[in-house]
């Protein structure tokens, strides 16, 4: 099954930037399923509806995507073994003194387990720490030591076990999603031509706006990366227009 698995962060980030509609457009481009775990669905929909008044409208918008099938809640049957391995290899990998540091939440573990089980094309994760754990666990150790001002032990065999599990997992962020949407002209098409006539630098501002928008709503992307992405994406967009 061709699929992409979403963590809650990218959906929230797109929603807070009024870009949730991109999910349906991108799914069409993708031609497969966009999956979320049951825990992610709970965080995106159930919690705002039942626990806080602030994000009810946003939760209803996400609910519409689930209802239309643009986001599918993945069946979690058959992931227990992978789940347990991830839980054990991540939440018992780093310790300070005699205390293990619990890094991952069951929802995030479930999301990675689903990615592995369904052999997804990629996992969409905005937050830095899960991404680092998948791609650069040593960098995460350095951050823990620097920020907590104490020696952190990393059990290498557990990290190796985790890295073996995620060796085929590719990670992208909402920053890449909006970049691709830009390159395909999806973002531009949502604005009337009049705007382009009024704002001469519309193309540049639009790209800058969406990249900074997702960054300021939790997508872990550095200023340097945004600058480099802008150049690469603008170049691709101009080449496509020619």
């Amino acid at each position: 099954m061709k699929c992409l698995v979403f963590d809650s962060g990218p959906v929230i980030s797109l929603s807070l930037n009024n870009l949730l509609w991109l999910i349906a457009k991108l799914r069409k481009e993708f031609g497969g399923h966009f999956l979320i775990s049951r825990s992610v669905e709970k965080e995106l929909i159930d919690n705002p509806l039942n626990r806080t008044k602030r994000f009810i409208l946003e939760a209803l918008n996400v609910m519409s995507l689930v209802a239309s099938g643009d986001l599918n809640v993945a069946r979690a049957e058959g992931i227990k073994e992978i789940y347990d391995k991830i839980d054990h290899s991540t939440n018992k990998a780093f310790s300070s003194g005699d205390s293990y540091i619990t890094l991952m939440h069951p929802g995030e573990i479930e999301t990675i387990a689903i990615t592995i089980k369904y052999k997804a094309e990629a996992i969409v994760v905005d937050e830095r720490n899960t991404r680092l754990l998948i791609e650069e666990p040593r960098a995460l150790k350095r951050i823990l030591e620097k920020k907590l001002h104490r020696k952190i032990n990393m059990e290498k065999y557990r990290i190796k076990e985790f890295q073996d599990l995620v060796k085929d997992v590719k990670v992208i962020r909402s920053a890449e999603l909006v970049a691709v949407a830009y390159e395909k002209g999806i973002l531009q098409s949502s604005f009337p031509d009049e705007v382009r006539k009024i704002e001469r630098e519309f193309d540049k501002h639009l790209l800058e706006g969406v990249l900074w928008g997702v960054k300021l709503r939790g997508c872990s992307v550095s200023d340097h990366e945004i600058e480099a992405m802008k150049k690469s994406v603008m170049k691709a967009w101009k080449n496509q227009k020619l």
Partner: protein
Amino acid sequence: MSSSSRKKAGQMSLVVKTDIISTLKEVSSRIKQEKFSELMELSNHVIHNASVFQDEDSISVAVAVYALYKTLSLYKLDHSRILKLIERGITALEKDDYIQFRNSISSVIKVVDAVDKRLSRYVDEVVNKARIKKAVKIYDHGISLARVAELMEISQWELLNYLGNVKERDERFNKSRLDVARDIFSGGEGKGK
């Protein structure tokens, strides 16, 4: 080894206990000297333990101290009640009376909350804001977003609204990540496949 067994027993690790007592003594001294701006650093100190041990006590003390920092810096208040509660908390913890200690910290939070509700013109309550600020700190320490949200009992929606303030590592541009995304979206229904 895990903190959950200690939590169930209503106890706390010696490291956490020693650190909380020493921090609360510092907090009390700073309040007496009206050096409120130094309370923020003290709340950050406790949050280091909150990241490692992920215990409710370090979290509630960090939130209480940060909320005190905000409230006392903003409003001129009689500190005597707050100081009494802090002293009571210290004494209780020194005697391993965890119930009394937790009641004292919870009362500090209630006092701050009541002052804030009485005096603030803003909807964003200081205690809730303190939870979010401390959550962002724990995330910055390396704990995953969902785990932080769970620990601090706040929603990821709220947390993500503030995460843009975290200074990111100066990560180099990873073109292959963008290429992966380009590749993923290169052959769907939009391309007629």
